[in-house]
């Protein structure tokens, strides 16, 4: 039982990191990014090919280095950030709303198809495997103690990411990014460069996603296209929506409720002999229904985001957050956001 609990908690902390990353893009920036799981996958793939050494034929994949695990995870997160930068440069320039979502959906499918079909990249549908107990031998851990060690590592990463993002959330950058969600025109009028703001937020989210992917690779020891499909993002979205979009604590709660409790609760249902997918399908159906129900009944989530009110004006206006007095270093660069406003 404790074995089981350890694995559930490990998975939960990895999902927390993932959801916190997506929360930057969707919760703060307000962009419904369907490419997010691609960053998680890229982080996982990169971590694997950077740690497990040269490919043994017939397997083939790029790089094949034997770097230490933490370094590989960081490089994987960096790779995810680079991909986020490319996608963001294209998608955030002119596109918002559904057009943004559709282009990011396209981007993640391009990655998905490449990973699955272009064998020299990540060995196609076989995927990359063989990352056993990273760092375990360095610390001389047995299989049993290693599980606890890895759980501790994941929780530590989740806590650090949470604290960093909480700090950033109240910073000028966090507030400005959120103001673009509320009213881009107003933000631009205050002299903020919307494209640059959104791009930074997007890359940050992608990096955190890649980090979660690196941890995921260590937990799963392997990664292949059947381990992820672009539609998996919906579980992360449901977690954020249920917990409270834009609120870090809410996101953690949502991950606990959806990605952990709901996912695990179906594990104990009896298997139906002639329809092995039944339980899985039921769970996914419930996640879809929860998503719809929350959008309808409680779109702000269980723990709503604290609205930053105008400090000077009266309470209850619920308007855009104050932009701080720091307009001095942000040169007015309305130009890049404006040309298509006509």
């Amino acid at each position, binding site marked *: 039982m404790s074995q089981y609990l350890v694995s559930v908690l490990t998975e939960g902390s990895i999902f927390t990191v993932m959801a916190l990353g997506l929360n930057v893009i969707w919760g703060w920036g307000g962009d419904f990014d369907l490419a997010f799981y691609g960053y998680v996958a890229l982080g996982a793939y990169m971590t694997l090919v950077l740690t497990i050494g040269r490919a043994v034929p017939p397997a083939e994949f790029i790089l094949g280095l034997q770097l230490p695990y933490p370094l590989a995870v960081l490089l994987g997160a960096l790779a995810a950030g680079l991909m986020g930068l490319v996608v963001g440069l294209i998608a955030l320039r002119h596109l918002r709303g*559904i057009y943004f979502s559709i282009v990011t959906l396209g981007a993640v499918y391009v990655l998905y198809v490449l990973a699955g079909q272009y064998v020299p990249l990540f060995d196609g549908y076989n995927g990359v495997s063989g990352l056993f107990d990273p760092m375990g031998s360095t610390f001389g851990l047995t299989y049993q103690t290693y599980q606890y060690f890895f759980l501790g590592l994941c929780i530590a990463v989740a806590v650090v990411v949470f604290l960093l993002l909480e700090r950033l959330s109240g910073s000028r950058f966090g507030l400005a990014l959120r103001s673009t969600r509320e009213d881009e025109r107003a933000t631009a009028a205050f002299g903020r460069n919307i494209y640059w703001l959104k791009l930074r937020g997007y890359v940050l989210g992608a990096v955190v996603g890649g980090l979660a992917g690196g941890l995921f690779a260590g937990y799963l020891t392997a990664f292949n296209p059947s381990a992820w499909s672009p539609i998996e993002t919906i579980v992360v979205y449901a977690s954020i929506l249920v917990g409270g979009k834009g609120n870090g604590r809410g996101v953690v709660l949502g991950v606990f409720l959806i990605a952990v409790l709901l996912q695990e609760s179906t594990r104990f249902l009896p298997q139906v002999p002639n329809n092995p997918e039944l339980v899985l399908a039921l769970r996914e159906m419930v996640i879809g229904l929860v*998503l719809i129900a929350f959008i309808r009944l409680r779109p702000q989530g269980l723990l709503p985001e604290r609205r930053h009110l105008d400090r000077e004006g009266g309470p209850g206006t619920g308007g855009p957050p104050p932009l701080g007095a720091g307009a001095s270093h942000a040169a007015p660069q309305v130009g890049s956001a404006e040309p298509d406003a006509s």
Partner: protein
Amino acid sequence: MRAAPPPGGGASRYAAADRGQASFPNTPGPEHGRWVINEVLLTLGFGLVSAAILSLSAVGFSLEYAVTNIANLSHGEILTVGAYAAYLVQRQTGSLLAAAIAAALAGGCLALAVHTTVIERFVSRGTPRMSIFIATLGLSFVIQNALVIIFGATNVAYSIPQGAPRHIGPFLWTPTEITILASAVAITAALYGIIHHTKFGKALRAVSQNRDLARVTGIHARRIAAATWFLAGLVAGYAGFVLAESVGTFNPYFGFSFFLITLAAAVAGGLGKAFSTMAGAVLVGIALQFTGAYVSSSYELAFAFAILALVILVRPRGLFSRGRLSVFE
């Protein structure tokens, strides 16, 4: 595209086209040139079939968007349900016509149900468009998994005797493919007639341009929107049937993967304008068939979205619409 002939099937059909022409593909010269042109024309012929199916799926999506301003991410499931309905009815009755009608009706009913139970309720409560968009993604998840629960996730074989391929002009089509093409043309003509020459079509266009103004002039916008969704569902359900027929197999996820191509094609053509969408779908369908023939059919989806990304960067409102997209839209 999923509508592509199965691997190997295509090659044998090229061979059939070549029969009796004594051509030497590797020898340069006039014969070689003729062979290349022939091959290109054949690919174009298959591309037209794929494009016909794609445009049927895309026009449904576009109509749904036109009257509610919501991109319906559960549109692919209408195709899937159409395919299942056709399969079940054909197994019972053995009639292809009955199967086609069942597919269309099932699609229409599902689209109507989606509209009245989810979309309209959200719209009337003033839920932001983006949230409704997300809800349709959840809905797609729900319908897919409901189908898995009812029918299981395994592939259903749905093979229909295609008949011997026949030369029509430079193209080579089986009787089934000819039926698909003819029905697509007929449906397009019917849609054109409905949208441009009936009172309902006029109301539809009014609602799509400005829902509030349409209501001011006494149009029952909600009823028009529901009827449009039903119409779109009819077309999409039928598209699911012909898609299943030409691929020969389907499962609960089949519509969603085809929908991704539909999405790329519809947005490339221009959302909300039924016939721009169709034109875009035809172009994308043919482009994909050539990709499949000359590069690899595994990369089709990636290519579809690459085309879309290009189009969106150059002409954000779609190939056939004027004006640029505002950042502040």
